[in-house]
């Protein structure tokens, strides 16, 4: 049983893995396109946690720089992605991801 003041790093990583898996679950099983998008954000967050955890372990700030960049990119991606969703909704009148399958076959 770990001390009260020391949490094993692997627990942080396991938490990250669980959140990541949840993100994947949301991505794979949900049909609403916005929910899917949010699952992607969840995955990104999980990875951020990993980065910060390692940054702490290695006593370097680089991991946090990476999370910084991840966040910036996530922001950009969210903006554009939501704009795309808006456009698709305008054209297809649907938010169900299964029905946006023009690339079929």
């Amino acid at each position, binding site marked *: 049983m770990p001390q009260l003041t020391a949490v094993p790093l692997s627990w942080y990583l396991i938490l990250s893995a669980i959140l990541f898996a949840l993100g*994947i679950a949301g*991505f*794979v*099983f949900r*049909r609403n396109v916005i929910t*899917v998008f949010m699952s992607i954000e969840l995955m990104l967050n999980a990875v951020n946690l990993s980065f910060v955890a390692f940054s702490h372990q290695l006593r370097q700030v680089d991991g946090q720089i990476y999370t910084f960049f991840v966040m910036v990119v996530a922001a950009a991606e969210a903006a554009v992605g939501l704009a795309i969703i808006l456009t698709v909704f305008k054209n297809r009148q649907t938010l169900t*991801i*299964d029905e*946006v*399958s*023009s*690339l*079929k*076959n």
Partner: protein
Amino acid sequence: MPNQPDLQLWLIPVFPLIGAFLNGTLGRNWSKGLIAGVAIGASALSFVWVVKTLSALGQLDTAHVERYFTWIASGDLNVGFDLAVDRLSSVMLLVVTGVGTLIHVYAVGYMDHDKGFWRFFSYLNLFLFFMLILVLAQNFLLLFVGWEGVGLCSYLLIGFYFLEKYAGDAAKKAFVVNRVGDFGFSLAMLLMVVQFGSLDMTKVFTAAKAMPVEAQSGILTAIALLLVVGACGKSAQVPLYVWLPDAMAGPTPVSALIHAATMVTAGVYVVARSSEVFLKAPLAMEVVAVIGLLTAVVAALIGTAQNDIKKVFAYSTVSQLGYMFVGLGVGAFSAGIFHVVTHAFFKALLFLGAGSVIHALHGEQDLARMGGLRSKIPITYWTLMAAALAIAGVWPFAGFHSKDAILLAAHAHAPWMFWVGVVTAGLTAFYVFRAIFLCFFGEYRGHAHPHESPAIMYMPLVILALLSVAGGYLPIMDWIAPLFPEAHEAHDMTLVLISVGFGLAGILAAYYVYVLKPGTAEASAARLGGLYRAIANKFYVDEAYDAAIVHPLEQGSRAVLLHGVEQVVVEGGLKGTVAMVRGFGGLFRHLQGGNIRSYAVYALLGAVVFLGLMVAKGGSQ
């Protein structure tokens, strides 16, 4: 070999090659004058260069060889691009370039109305190139290049009127039959490599000279016989002569140049060149003589019943080539070559004259629709008469001297050959004069308005006629004889008189049958019945070939190759592969569902696999 000045032998064949190239690529848009100028110029330049080379070489006691570059250097086999001139090839060179140029000049007039004027002269020059390579070659492989090349040009020129089916068929027939001969030639070359390790003529002949005479069989006999197969193909001897009569589908200048004066003599030339090999293989020599004799007789017989003037002369060519083979076979090599030269003169003249007649009659070739043209086309008449007298062996015309030399040598070798030879001489005189009489005597039986040919056409006729008259006095045999170990027979007057007698008999018989008593021909034909029909149908040789070889090949191909191999193996294999690919494609198509969630699952699958690999490889270390 003493070092001799470099005479640029390569220019001899290259002039016509350049002519062929220019006319072939640019000639389409040129005026006829320019095309003709380039073609005749190339041929004439070649002739001039030959003369210059020969005068520079003088006596030519030894061959003058020029080696340019190594063509093949593979293991022990070394083949170079080597050209050589010796006494034998000097004669051939003069004939090819000289007669060739004359025919080029004639053709300018003959082909005047043809749309393919440029193409014709391009091919004609190309032919000259290959023939000259053949003659000048110092090794068998290079000779074979020329050999094949003239075969190609023969095909192109026979099929010149390619829009006519019979022309295309004739061209294909010529090529395929020649191929059979070429196969023999190739095998001969392979045996040479095996036996002598080289294809260079000097090496081969020196080695052969050192070998003993083979009584029955042996490597030299094998090589010789295979060369004979090749020669039979190219020089239209039994059994490979069937292409030559059909080759008359080509324009008449082509018949004159290729199928009379030059290409068909290539076989004779090769045998003469390889005399060292043949002298050590008496069996092969005998075969050559017998084939020559058989061919001479059979062709002469067939020639008596032909109605197309060009076909008569075609069979005449086959027959005369047979004579040359007889000369070679009995050891009278120089006589055989002498006959090549004189034959070039009078046979080319015969064909060009025939062309003149055909031109005068606007395309008529059937003897039945000619007649009485003596007065209408006199120049053609007189020149053709000269040629006919030459071929009939009448003294003092050219043919008499060469044919006589062969017949005398034949008698010295085996008297029965002499007798067959003189009978054939009689037949020769008969069918040639039959053609002359049917064409120029009697009443005109046609519908055209005959007119004499233009000067550009009759000038070469005149020159060739002069050569046919006086050519017998050219000292060709003396020039070439030192190359061959021949015994010079005593000049037996009796035999000479006998052969001349048979010739005159033939002429008189033709005169009787066709001029004095015009109905005699049909009457005799009726009485001879079956025999006449056999002769008129060329002894059904073509039909026999058809049944024995062509049809079975066709059926066999269709059954086995078409249905069997082609459809089952090739198409089946192909279709099978296509079906398989399609099947897989169909399977994988489902991956592209367009559904984002599926893609995510696949990505996840990939990640899992990757992780699994990581774990399997031992964790994060």
